[in-house]
């Protein structure tokens, strides 16, 4: 009697892993709610903030793009939840054992997870940011953001950069959350950690009285660095240039993914 020979290794492990993860993603209701939440929060909070803004003179110095994109502040928490749950759900349901049995190449599995998360988040971020920018364009001229106050056009190249920066920022935050969740393995702790990393840097920068320290905190925190990529006025005075800011966020993301990958590979699931 001979044992059945083990099945040949699948010819396209990455493709199959992607297909498997995509099936997991689209067959539960949670992710679509989260994606809808990203769009709704970005547009709604942006519209409310634009309605609350005032520019009474040419020297008001308020960045219209930052106001329109205020919704990024809460929306990134939804993105973070999506990123954390992509991994956290596997651990909380015990699915991880099955997943890693079916896909013993753990990094392939993580890559598939990341890809299946990135595509929908990117897809949801585009209409979210576009909607917020459009709402800002409709509302802000009525709130004093007029050519007379130095806001000639709200669709300049810098505004396109701001919008692209916001979309890329949200996508990077999703991957950052995925990486940290892979490292922490528990959804609740991971979301606390991710939101701490995002929100505590700017809060600390507001709280410290040492201006040099505050500027450094604004340079290294992913949220303030990412906001530099969304600035359209006073760019020279920012702690980082827009693309440097996005670079800092990317560094955080790469660091989190590396940490997650390392721990996933070395640890027992």
């Amino acid at each position, binding site marked *: 009697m001979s044992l059945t020979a083990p099945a040949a290794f699948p010819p396209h492990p990455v493709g199959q892993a992607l297909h498997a993860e995509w099936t997991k993603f689209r067959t539960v209701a949670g992710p679509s709610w989260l994606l809808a939440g990203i769009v709704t929060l970005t547009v709604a909070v942006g519209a409310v*903030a634009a309605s*609350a*803004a*005032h*520019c*009474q*003179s040419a020297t*008001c*110095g*308020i*960045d219209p793009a*930052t*106001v329109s*994109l*205020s919704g990024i*502040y*809460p929306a990134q*928490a*939804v993105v*973070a*939840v999506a990123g*954390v*749950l992509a991994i*956290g759900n596997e651990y*909380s349901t015990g699915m991880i054992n099955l997943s890693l049995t079916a896909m013993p190449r753990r990094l392939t599995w993580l890559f598939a997870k990341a890809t299946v998360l990135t595509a929908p988040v990117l897809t949801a971020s585009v209409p979210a940011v576009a909607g917020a920018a459009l709402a800002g364009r409709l509302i802000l001229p009525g709130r004093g953001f007029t050519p007379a106050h130095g806001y000639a056009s709200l669709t300049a190249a810098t505004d396109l950069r701001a919008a692209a920066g916001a979309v890329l920022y949200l996508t990077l935050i999703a991957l950052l959350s995925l990486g940290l969740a892979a490292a922490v393995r528990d*959804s*609740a*702790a*991971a*979301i*606390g950690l991710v*939101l*701490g990393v995002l*929100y*505590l840097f*700017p*809060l*600390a920068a*507001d*709280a*410290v*009285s*040492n*201006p*040099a*320290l*505050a500027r450094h905190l604004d340079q290294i925190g992913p949220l303030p660095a990412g*906001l530099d990529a969304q600035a359209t006025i006073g760019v020279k005075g920012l702690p980082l240039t827009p693309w440097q800011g996005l670079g800092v966020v990317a560094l955080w993301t790469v660091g989190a993914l590396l940490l997650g990958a390392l721990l996933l590979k070395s640890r027992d699931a």
Partner: protein
Amino acid sequence: MTTETVTPHRSPLTPERESFWYLVHAEWTKFRTVRGWVIAAGVTIVAITAFAFLGADASSSCTGGNGASGACPAQPTGPGGVPVQDVFYFAHQPVTGNGTITAAVTSLTGQILTGASQLAPGGLQPWSKAGIIIKESTSQGSAYAAMMVTGSHGVRMQWDYVNDTPGLAGSVSASSPRWLRLVRTGGTITGYDSADGTHWMLVGTATLPGLTSTVQAGLFAAGSSDSFSTMATGVFRHIGLSWPATGWTGTNIGGSANATGTPLPGTLRQSAGTITVASFGDISPATGSGQSLQRALAGTFFGLIPLIVVAAMFMTAEYRRGLIWVSLTAAPRRGRLLAAKATVIGAVGFAAGLVAATLALAVGTPLLLRAGPLAWPVSLLTEARMVAGTGALLAVAAVLALAIGTIVRRSAPAVAIVIVVIFVPYLLAFGPLAGQGGTGGGGWELRITPAAALSVQQAVPRFYQLIANYPLNSGYYPLAPWAGLAAECAWAAAALALAYYLLRRRDA
């Protein structure tokens, strides 16, 4: 042959087991036996305390929240060390011992500075004032008590800069003058007002501790600090002093140059039975130019994160592990289970906040004082409110997280929702909604959201009699301390009500 009936054992339902506190004890046991949760509560305390070092480490003494720094401008301080504005024209004479000063104000008008020294009629401010005053000396910040008529707040008695009590309402005119009287008895000065000079009504009693025997009594006018370009002119008649009269001396308190905000010196005109005093300036509290003690509690946000995570998991872990079935079997009245959990997690949050805020203030206060003076002297009562308020803020945040955890039954969304509703309004107020000059928002986002509760830590006071810019980055919140906490409580109560409804209605 008889069959023995076996009665299954049932533990007796003793009154103790029926009691709510039995349930609370059970929930407390659940909490304290999960090591990670106890560690997280400890991290809350450590984070708040540790951040006091960072928040209170000021490199220069007069750094505002917007990063502006420089030498502290000379700030006169009044009794108790409160920062004050004490700039006005004082027609005075020295008086010794007990006595009375009386005067009738027949007119209070305003003039507004239009050019270098050009005055146009109008511009009387709500708190422009003229009246009688007994003041310890002519130096800025000395103790005083005054009866005055104001631009649109009627007759007021004010003393020692921060105290204000109303007298007769309505504005003053030649046909309806306002009679004012101050009576000094030792360290106590009593104010009266009258519409006719015959029928007097008590307005208020001021105690000025340590008032010297010889003081300056007389007439004053001040244009108000709402607009330092307003000059107020008061016309006085029927002036009477019970002390021997020595003639009026006119002094510009705080100097006459515009360094103090007064563009022109005040004036004194005397004619038969009438004295007219005109001046810019104000006698009032000031918003101060140092640091707010609240900086020592800047770590509250850091402490909130682990607490919120634990509080949400206190409920969501029951669902994840299936423990909820055991819990609900043991305590079939689901509302009581929720109440017991809320009691335990609220008590944990309150205790953690109390300990952390006490430690943070103990560590942060000397650090702040080493860097420079506080914007406002903080009374023991205010410190107690800041400490108890921090405990309450954390307790209510924990209960909110528990309620949201019950509603959504999943830890990650629950934690995210609670962190967002507390953190994001505050970030928006300092970020996109900071407005012109970036001094901080402080509109709706810190009134109607749970983030309003941060106002319970406010260490600097607001005065209705001082119309000024109260910027968020100097520690001024839009809501009063307890009102802000009440806003957070309202959110927690609403979430708890929804959680109760869903917990009862839903299948576990």
